[in-house]
């Protein structure tokens, strides 16, 4: 198995607010992230595809093709958007790094034509990230 990772960046705004909590609890739990006007991040996304290199092309998945999928599924949907209001998949969830990473996983997994999605790691800042992978893939190429 060979692992191919493609990185991309996008910028988006969000805010954390749960209708299940009172206004005071929202402020206590989410702190600055509860600002009703929102705030933004430069996100960095790393997408890892696992597969066997094709015997003819030597590729796990053509990078041009992967780039197109990432552009259609992620960049066009999330770049320069307000995640709470403009990304349908996030409308009923708080756009924490954990939830955004999971939404990205669910968007990408069915679109990978060759090999399979192995890992999604989403950095909200250089010091904070969330990652998704199937339990069976734990510990591989981390």
């Amino acid at each position, binding site marked *: 198995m060979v692992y191919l990772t493609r990185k991309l960046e996008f910028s988006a705004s969000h805010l954390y607010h749960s209708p299940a909590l009172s206004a005071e609890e929202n402020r206590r739990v989410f702190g600055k992230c509860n600002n009703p006007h929102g705030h933004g991040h430069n996100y960095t996304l790393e997408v890892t595809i696992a597969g066997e290199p094709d015997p003819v092309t030597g590729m796990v998945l053509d990078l041009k093709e992967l780039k197109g999928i990432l552009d259609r599924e992620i960049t066009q949907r999330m770049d320069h958007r307000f995640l709470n209001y403009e990304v349908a998949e996030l409308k009923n*969830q*708080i756009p*924490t790094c954990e939830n955004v990473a999971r939404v990205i*996983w669910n968007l990408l997994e069915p679109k990978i034509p060759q090999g*399979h999605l192995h890992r999604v790691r989403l950095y909200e800042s250089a010091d904070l990230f*969330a*990652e998704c992978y199937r339990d069976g893939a734990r510990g591989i190429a*981390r």
Partner: protein
Amino acid sequence: MSETLHISLGRRYHFAASHRLHTTKLSEEENNRVFGKCNNPYGHGHNYTLEVRFSGPVDHATGMIANIADLDAFVNERVIEPFDHRSLQDEVPAFRHAVPTTENLCVEIFQRLKTFPVATLEAVRVEETSNNSFEYGGN
């Protein structure tokens, strides 16, 4: 795929500390040969980067595996405060008898962080410099 989707939360911290690689189990000459420049009796320092990864269920109400403020407070108290701007072999009890290599540092940090009550510690990764990094997952 039928396996469950696993989500983890990663956070990076920074601290600066000095150390000296030296063991009483070796002669002066052997220490010098094995540890080279790192055996300098005056010690030397690094800007360490610590990366921790925790897993657990994503809370439905908060969307979080763990609240970052709680995690930061825990890591600061257990690791950053006792390690930052310290001499590891002189000021951290675990390194009075163990060589403060970054391998041993990973293990010590894992022991200090594995009791985080909110989520499960998966791995500790320490970058001693941007070119050297070490990771420990508890076994």
